[in-house]
């Protein structure tokens, strides 16, 4: 009887399930801030973005040198979410990025002595800093599972936990009923 009731409830919840499927198929993308770091001695580039097609443009960036609490440099990301700075000491440089509308994050960039010693020019004759930073293959690609898999993983975990809690609770209630009889 109880199983029938659950099945009936589940049937009524089919529209919600349809909303999930629509969401998955309608070009969604994870919304958190992600970073890509590029090292082009003596400059470091950082790209901040929500998804591949949604850069964190015109966001305030503050750069903190290792161990410092006052910003070494501040500025804004460009329209593609890029920001560049020239570290002068080895250590962990902290960058805070804030779009002013509820999205802010931090990234720590480790600079080694070897990177500082490299005298490779940041700008080659005939090109511009902007072009080089955007075209460089050195920018790291994030290694994530495809979003669809991650969505399914999350749903599976949530439904799995719900199922376990349901089973435990139902078992407790069943025991109470048996004891009562």
């Amino acid at each position, binding site marked *: 009887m109880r199983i029938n009731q659950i099945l009936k409830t589940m049937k009524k919840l089919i529209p919600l399930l349809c909303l999930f499927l629509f*969401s998955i198929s309608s070009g969604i993308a994870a919304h958190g801030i992600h970073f890509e770091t590029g090292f082009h001695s003596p400059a470091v580039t950082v790209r901040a973005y929500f998804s591949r097609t949604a850069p964190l443009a015109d966001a305030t960036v503050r750069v903190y040198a290792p161990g410092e609490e006052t910003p070494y440099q501040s500025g804004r990301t460009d329209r593609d979410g890029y920001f560049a700075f020239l570290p002068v000491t080895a250590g962990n440089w902290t960058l805070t990025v804030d779009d*002013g509308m509820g999205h*802010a994050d931090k990234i720590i960039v480790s600079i080694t002595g070897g990177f500082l010693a490299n005298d490779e020019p940041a700008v080659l004759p005939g090109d511009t800093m902007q072009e080089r930073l955007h075209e460089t293959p050195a920018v790291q690609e994030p290694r994530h599972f495809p979003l669809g898999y*991650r969505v399914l*993983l999350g749903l599976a*975990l*949530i*439904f799995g*936990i719900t199922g376990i809690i349901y089973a435990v609770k*139902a078992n407790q209630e069943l025991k109470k009923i048996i004891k009562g009889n």
Partner: protein
Amino acid sequence: MHISDGIIDANISIVANVVSVGLIYVSGKNTSVQEIPKMGMMGAALFIASLIHFPMAGTSVHLGLFGIAGIILGKRAFPAVFTAVLFQSLIFQHGGLFSVGINSLNMGAGAFAAWMAWRMKILPDPVRAVLAGLLGVLIPVLLMSVEFQLSGYGRGILYLFSVYLVVAVIEGAISFSAVRFMQKVKPELLT
């Protein structure tokens, strides 16, 4: 709307995590078997909702569905909100893992306010539903903007409010449609 790690003071984050665990216990205490599938479904809906985002005023905003969570789950909304925020952080890196507590409290407050609005029986159902949808967005935004302001981030409460007011109106419309739908097919789903 999701705060990343390192933005809010670490001590506040620890307190928020402890308070969240306490609230899960209080809110989930004496849950009946029949309520658990509802909580799971709502948790899954909240988990997915943040992926539906759109560009606005030079940034990216997303749905939350905390209004509907408050309407459907009432005082049981917080465990569902916490679960959704936790998995959004773990799987999408959406908000910091250490900040799950403060994010859950912000968004859970939205669901709670929505539940309070839905309980105002003197108002007609459509008005209560829209109000719940609006509060489900505006309360988390208010809390988040205050926290950002205190931490030296953001462009101010009024600016954030004006951006998220559009999202609140959309959520109000979604809550209105969802309530009308549920009243037709399964009125007992509503608290």
